[in-house]
């Protein structure tokens, strides 16, 4: 088949040359004719490749003899990959594409093929027990020739790059450097194999040398690849054709590194953990290493399970598995320590999980009255709230009362209002616990109530009075706006008083309860009323419960004056709730008077508000002093 192909190519070439010479009759014109004809050049190129192929076969006959089937298959596989990468390289160097370029790459592929074959042949040394002198002569000469060629071509590429700058020679320089590392690795392996074959006894250190050779060569290759990629990325573009061999090189290097680490660990473990076997033990246990099936004369190790092996055989096995080859006992102490550490961590995790319920249980126990720990305050609060609900109207400690008030201010507002409807004597003891919660609930319903009350209170006549465009209509609207302004001012004053009360609440433990009671009282009665005057009255009232006996007497005349100013008839009672109820009635009367009067009423209201403001300011000063 190959002979037929080469014969056909030879015939074609001869025909082309003969035809050209026949046409031109002279040498030079014939050469020019062939050069300018694409078909003729194609035939010449094919002939060139055939000659290269035949030369390759000749050299392989000389240096390698007959190729084995496995070698040929591997060669074909690698050749196709190399050819693909060469095509990728062509795409990078499109500008430099010319016959010389193709010739250079052909030489590179040619040498690569022989490098691969040399590598295969040296690996085969270990597999074949029969090797003659012819084998050594062939392999030695092949390695020498390839090494010299790689070095010469590398120097040539290096000099060319220095002279002309970065060109395609960069790729050739890099490729020949890689091939040089391959040939170095192959040569070292050959020397090691040959040295071992010279002696009949197994050479223990050979595996170590092979391992470190693999590691060093792998490192050099990785560095070369990284250097090449960086240089090419700067000058041309990323060399895509290099990534596949680079990936394999890095993977092999990592595997070699892992092997070295495992080997060193195995050696350290064997030297420190396992004793040497004594001659008596060797005699007792059949004296044969089960791994290599040879006699154990010296350098034997006894594992904790009692089995004995060669030191080198055991080290090789430990690089893969840390178990006894015979009984598979897990024998390395380091993994044993790790395995025992894991259950300990598990126990700690279990203890931590068990610890979580313990604080919770401890938190539940203090619900009876002991102050709870901070993390379980919510749980304790729930317990306290449940106790409060169960207790009903019973008196509660200040702490639980505060929690109860914080949790449910609004719902307690209604019971307080309902409680007011009860006759005064029985209401007092009931009001005491329920007065506290609305302290914070008052803030929430502040915006909504005034609007519907205003709308409901206005009659149709009042609305028509404010809709017109005449003087009277504008006067009515101004009155309403002034009322709103007064109410807002009163609200602001009350807010500031609440802030001072809350500050006092934080200072002392006893006073806050009383203060909260006072604020609750005022906030409850504030809801039904919409008049600034009523608010002023409430402000005066809320000071009464917090004032001392001596300060209570000056407050009473103020109330009397206020009532007299309103002109309403009211029975003076010591009970504050009754007085508040009496105050609410005159508000409606005042509204009717306002409807009938005009500017005179406005002036009177202004004067009353100013007087009441002065009184409330004086009262605030007293409260602050207290």
């Amino acid at each position: 088949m190959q002979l037929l192909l080469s014969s056909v190519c030879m015939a074609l070439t001869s025909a082309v040359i003969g035809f050209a010479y026949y046409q031109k009759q002279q040498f030079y014109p014939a050469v020019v004719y062939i050069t300018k004809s694409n078909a003729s050049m194609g035939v010449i190129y094919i002939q060139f490749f055939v000659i290269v192929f035949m030369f390759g076969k000749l050299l392989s006959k000389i240096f390698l003899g007959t190729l084995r089937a496995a070698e040929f298959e591997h060669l074909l596989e690698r050749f196709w990959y190399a050819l693909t990468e060469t095509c990728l390289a062509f795409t990078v160097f499109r500008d430099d594409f010319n016959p010389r370029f193709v010739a250079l790459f052909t030489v590179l592929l040619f040498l690569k093929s022989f490098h691969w074959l040399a590598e295969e042949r040296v690996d085969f040394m270990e597999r074949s027990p029969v090797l003659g002198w012819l084998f050594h002569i062939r392999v030695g000469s092949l390695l020498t020739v390839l090494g010299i060629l790689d070095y010469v071509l590398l120097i040539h590429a290096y000099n060319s790059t220095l002279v002309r700058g970065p060109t395609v020679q960069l790729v050739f320089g890099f490729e020949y450097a890689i091939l040089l590392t391959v040939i170095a690795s192959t040569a070292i392996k050959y020397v090691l194999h040959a040295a071992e074959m010279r002696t009949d006894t197994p050479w223990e250190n050979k595996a170590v040398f092979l391992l470190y050779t693999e590691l060093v060569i792998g490192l050099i290759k990785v560095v070369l690849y990284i250097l090449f990629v960086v240089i090419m990325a700067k000058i041309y573009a990323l060399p895509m054709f290099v990534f596949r061999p680079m990936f394999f090189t890095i993977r092999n290097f990592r595997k070699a590194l892992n092997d070295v680490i495992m080997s060193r660990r195995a050696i350290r473990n064997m030297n420190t953990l396992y004793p040497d076997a004594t001659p008596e033990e060797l005699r007792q246990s059949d004296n044969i290493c089960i791994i290599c099936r040879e006699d154990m004369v010296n350098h034997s190790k006894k594992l904790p399970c009692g089995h004995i092996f060669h030191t080198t055989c055991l080290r090789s096995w430990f690089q893969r598995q840390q178990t006894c080859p015979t009984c598979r006992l897990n024998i390395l102490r380091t993994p044993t320590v790790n395995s025992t550490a894991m259950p300990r961590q598990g126990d700690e995790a279990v203890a931590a999980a068990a610890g979580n319920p313990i604080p919770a249980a401890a938190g539940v126990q203090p619900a009876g009255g002991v102050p709870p720990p901070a993390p379980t305050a919510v749980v304790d609060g729930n317990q306290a709230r449940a106790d409060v609900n169960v207790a009903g109207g019973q008196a509660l400690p200040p702490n639980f009362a505060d929690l109860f008030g914080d949790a449910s201010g609004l719902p307690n507002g209604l019971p307080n209002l309902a409680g007011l409807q009860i006759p005064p004597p029985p209401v007092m003891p009931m009001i005491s616990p329920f007065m506290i919660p609305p302290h914070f609930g008052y803030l929430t319903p502040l915006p909504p109530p005034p609007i519907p009350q205003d709308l409901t209170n206005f009659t149709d006549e009042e609305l028509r009075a404010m809709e017109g465009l005449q003087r009277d209509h504008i006067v009515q609207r101004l009155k309403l706006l002034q009322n709103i302004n007064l109410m807002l001012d009163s609200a602001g004053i009350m807010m500031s008083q609440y802030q001072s009360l809350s500050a006092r609440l934080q200072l002392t433990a006893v006073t806050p309860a009383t203060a909260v009671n006072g604020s609750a009282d005022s906030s409850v009665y504030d809801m039904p009323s919409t008049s600034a005057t009523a608010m002023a009255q409430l402000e005066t009232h809320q000071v009464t419960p917090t004032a001392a006996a001596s300060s209570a007497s000056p407050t009473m005349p103020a109330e009397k004056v206020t009532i007299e100013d309103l002109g309403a008839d009211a029975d003076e009672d010591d009970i504050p709730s009754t007085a508040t109820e009496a105050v609410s009635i005159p508000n409606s009367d005042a509204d009717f008077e306002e409807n009938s009067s005009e500017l005179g009423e406005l002036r009177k209201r202004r004067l009353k508000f100013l007087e009441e403001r002065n009184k409330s300011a004086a009262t605030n000063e007293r409260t602050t002093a207290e």
Partner: protein
Amino acid sequence: MAGSALRRLMAEYKQLTLDPPEGIVAGPISEDNFFEWEALIAGPEGTCFEGGVFPARLIFPTDYPLSPPKMKFTCDMFHPNIFADGRVCISILHAPGDDPMGYELSAERWSPVQSVEKILLSVVSMLAEPNDESGANVDAAIMWREQRDEFNAIARRLVRKTLGLPA
């Protein structure tokens, strides 16, 4: 590394020639390469493979006996634990360590104490008693489990084929 493997293979070959087990013949294909063996396995008596002689090939790694060899029948085989292309799937030939699929115990997998003789004896045992729980050839596993007669017929046909007899 391959040096110790070569010495061990030579020792095993010597042992097999001196004391061959019944129904098994094995040895290197050529004197130049001890890492490729050829074996002839006789079908176990009392089974559907009785009377057959099945050729197989074993390829040993360079780190033998630390890693197991690969075994492949070079004739047509129809068996739950033999792939269609002839590769043998048996626990003794699997790399040491835990089975990633969870079917085999680590004690059943390869160990340096194993040998070619033990491998071949395990294969003979596998021919006699297939394991249909983890089938390499699913069709054969199902047929062996549910249509035993048809399986036996196919096996007998293969036996005659290996012997060169007409079907």
